[in-house]
């Protein structure tokens, strides 16, 4: 975007999913009740929002999602490693669209190991690829009970809906 439409940023605002969620939560446009999400969860940093954003734009979205998690999860933990040195789910870079399923699954073992070590039943991601891949590897590595949720999904789940 920067490369091809440098004028774009002068004309329009842009917002990441995190910016939006935080904006809504901080301004009070939405309210959440974290007791709804009462299972222990872990958060996974997608490469694109985290490490690669850090590399390309000088800012990795590490703290933002964690702030959101704090708002709407009653109990959540980090994987290890996390943030900049987080393991990729194994489904990035378009590999979900390639026929190299075995390699992809092999790649995913690292993610599974990470999740297993935390002992959580739910993993929260803010990325479609990660969502799909983690579901796939959970099946491949015999963790059928692992729930994979979008970050906005846990927000939506915890939304306090005024009766009026």
């Amino acid at each position: 975007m920067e490369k091809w439409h440098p004028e774009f940023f002068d004309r329009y605002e842009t917002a990441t999913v995190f910016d939006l969620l935080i904006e809504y939560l901080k301004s009070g446009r939405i309210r959440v009740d974290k007791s709804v999400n009462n299972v222990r969860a872990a958060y996974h940093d997608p490469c694109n929002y985290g490490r690669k954003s850090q590399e390309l734009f000088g800012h990795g979205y590490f703290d933002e999602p964690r702030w959101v998690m704090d708002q709407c999860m009653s109990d959540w933990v980090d994987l290890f490693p996390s943030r900049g040195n987080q393991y990729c789910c194994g489904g990035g870079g378009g590999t979900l669209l390639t026929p190299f399923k075995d390699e992809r699954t092999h790649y995913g073992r690292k993610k599974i190991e990470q999740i297993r070590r935390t002992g959580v039943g739910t993993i929260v991601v803010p990325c479609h690829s990660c969502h799909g891949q983690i579901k796939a590897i959970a099946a491949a590595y015999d963790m059928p009970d692992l729930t994979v949720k979008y970050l906005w999904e846990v927000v939506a789940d915890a939304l306090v809906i005024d009766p009026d």
Partner: protein
Amino acid sequence: MEKTKSQFLVLGAGVGGICSAIDLAETGYSVTLVEKGPRTGGIMPQLDHQFPDDHCGMCRMLPMVDREPGAQTCLKRGLSHPNIRILTHTTLTDLSGNPGDYTAVLTSVSRGVDALRCTRCMACIDVCPVSVLDAFNDRAGDRNAIYQPFFGNPEALPTIDWDNCTRCGECAQACPNSAIDLERVELTESVAPVSGVIVAGGNPLYDPAVTDLYGYGVLPNVVTATAFERILSGSGPFRGQPVRPSDGHPIRRVAWIQCVGSRNVMIGAGHCSSTCCMFAVKEALLAKKTLGSDTDTTIFYMDMRTYGRDSQRYRDRAEEESGVRFIRCRIHSVDPADDPGDLKLTYLDDLGQPGEATFDMVVLSTGAGVQKELPPLLADKTDQGAVVTIGPEAGLQDIRETVLRAHGAVSSLLEKLNMDSRAKTIPKTGRAGDKSVNRFMQQPVIQVLVLDNGVVKAPQVEWPAIEGRLERSPGNIFVNRLSIIDGKDLSLELETVLKETRGNRLLVVSNHIAGYRATLTKRFEEAGFSAPLVEWVDLNRNDVSMGTETIQPDAAMKPIQVALMRLLHKRPSRGMAQVVENSALVIGAGPAGLSAAVSLAEQGVVVHLVEKEISIGGNGPRIQDEHQRRPIDQLIVRAKGHPNISIHTGATLGALSGRPGHFEGWVVKENMEIPLSFGAAIIATGGTPAITEAYGMGKHPPLVSHFDFEKKVLDPRFAEDTLNTVVMIQCAGSREEPRNYCSRTCCVKALDNALRVRQLFPHARIVIFYRDIMTYGKSEELYAKARTRRIRFIPFNKSKPPVVRTEGDTVVVDGFDPVMGEAVHLKADWVSLAVGMVPKPIHDLCRLLEVPVTPDGFVHEADAKWRPVDTINPGVFVCGLAKGPLRADEAVAEGTAAALRALRLLNRTELAPQRHSAVVRHAICSRCYLCVDSCPYGARFVEPVLGQVEVDPVACQGCGTCASVCPNSATVMGENEDFTVMNVIEAALM
């Protein structure tokens, strides 16, 4: 300027600072050693073991003579030298004036504890509620905000860590003597005149907490190398019973990750930190020793930089005998393994195959951090020559290099200030003044000073009972009791006692003496009781009081009796002082020898420079790089023109007799014998390129040594030929038996050659087969440069070297590239072999000089780390290639260092016999010569006419081995004569 009052400032009391302070002090100057932190010693007190002998050995840095038991022992516990004043918690805040006459302003921060009132009961430490990560254990343990910074020194004072102290006042309340003042006070003093300043700021280590790769700070079982050594240490957080920090499980598997914070341009650390490789090997062996030989120890490395003379063998032994695993792969990051606390590392093995291993602990070999800038205050003055820094430009240094640099810094400082080396105060440790000598000569009359210290928590003693017993003891004993507290009431009374006493020896008995000792020692000296005439009994010492509050007279009398016995047997030193010749013999006029000769000559020493070849300069003039050669050319010019240097070329040392301080011998030159006498000798005989038959060297013309290849490349005709492929093979014939050492210079030369070829032939194929690229320190940048210039580097292991063969007229090199996972076959126009260096034959010379030689034919130094240019012969020093492979600039630096060490000897006008050296009683000596054989220093020799055993009082270090093999006490040890010791034992068993 009055030269006898010359004093120097040394900033920083790490290894370099202590070493230069001792050098200056022993050369006769007074030194103020300034340390910002709470203690001296730098990193050393944290480490118990050093490569290559796996022991500390720091004490070997101390002067080997003139020792008083207890005065100077373990440098970990602190430094004590009569010419050195130590100021901890102190910084230099101003420096004005001119070289040779500076005025320094020093600012000290109070420790918060009154040295005189504190009884070292440590109640303050016990109650302190603050717990901080202990820097001494490199965060592997905790300490309080009030703590004892010195290692194992019973007299060291607790100190408040002002940054972490909450001023809660618990300690002040717990202190029985109100010794604690919670107000931080800064005191300023000015010191003048200061002749020069040595800056030994040390090098900070990289802090791995700034990266998340290794989980440092998050995973408790990931520690730094320093912390791991603390964990293994008996004085460390686990008190010698190391366990895994996370859960107290035994440590069975340990991995080291090399290059943490080094060789990483992404963090601005393009350098190699030089020391970490050997540190890791040492730690791996230490781990095996401490944790059991079946401990799994694995080192993940890029290049194992074993460039020291003894390092390669050490590493090989670690691998082959002790089973330390070495894996050539840089580790990406540390992951937890499935079992809690375990750590998992993934890597590529030597064949490029992926591997995974689980460890209990991961040790980060952290390198040098960001070098502190020299404060402008000092930076401004470095040009003036009287402010000298100890090599910060070279980055992190091991002990040996630091010690060498310290010697060199002192040498160049003295040289620049043009100090007349013989106008100075001779150190007077333990040497008796006039009055003391008289006292020594008298029948022992003992004055006992009972110093009753009124502070609470000092042991309570029933003094009258003790006094009564003392007075009843046989012999002439007088007792006076003085009350002291806070140093008050001491001065007048003490003066009177010392003035009026009939005693000629002093026994000080007190229930708490720490803090007073220095002042009292000075007062005693003034009254003519030099240190050897005084014995101290501090009943507050743990081994006497055993922590009890009241000491029974019986218990108190034990140490008192022992001290009495020792005093009764005090005797003056025997033997005649020997004149020292202010001249030196330097053997070999290469870079090292020239440097030593010029440095000595500049300081007023007459130098005989003896060179076997017909011209001087050694390998210097053959150095092709003009930038490297210039300093040596300059040295040649300076040596030739120096009035204090006489040069004998085409000459060798023919014979030698005498002893340190005064040798006599002759130099053989064209069948002429020129007699010479000199006070010290410096061996600088150098070395030559090695001859090898490796890879068929000598059989095929395109196979040349890298020295010859360098000449070819520099020949203008070289560029005229066509050139397709150059192959270089490193470590040809070296780093394996029988020449199992790194020659240190070959990698840099190969890189230089490769880059030169690249410049001439932009399209040539240049391949370097290497085992480990030894570009330590800044030369790593050269390696990096070569990597960007289309030079292919292929690693190989000792067991699978590349093969050189011929195909018709062409030479072909076959190898395997583990990175690409493929075999390579290279038709080479040239194959350049890094043949390495060997020392010149020196066995005959070393026999003459009574200096041992290593199996590789190098001169064996006194101690590889702590006394790198000394030999066990105190009058003989060594530098340059004769001692081990090194670069020309390093040889020059070693030359200066050796000069300084020689100067320490030559600076004295005479050598007084040491009180602790051995003496032979010829009348009863049976001449069995067991003592001669058992002397570890070769300090004994047989006088040829009568066959008497003579002791060289300078070479003798007072170890007493001779006395213990002598069945009839015909050889005796200064004050530790048999009857003294036996009476002491008897007293101790009362």
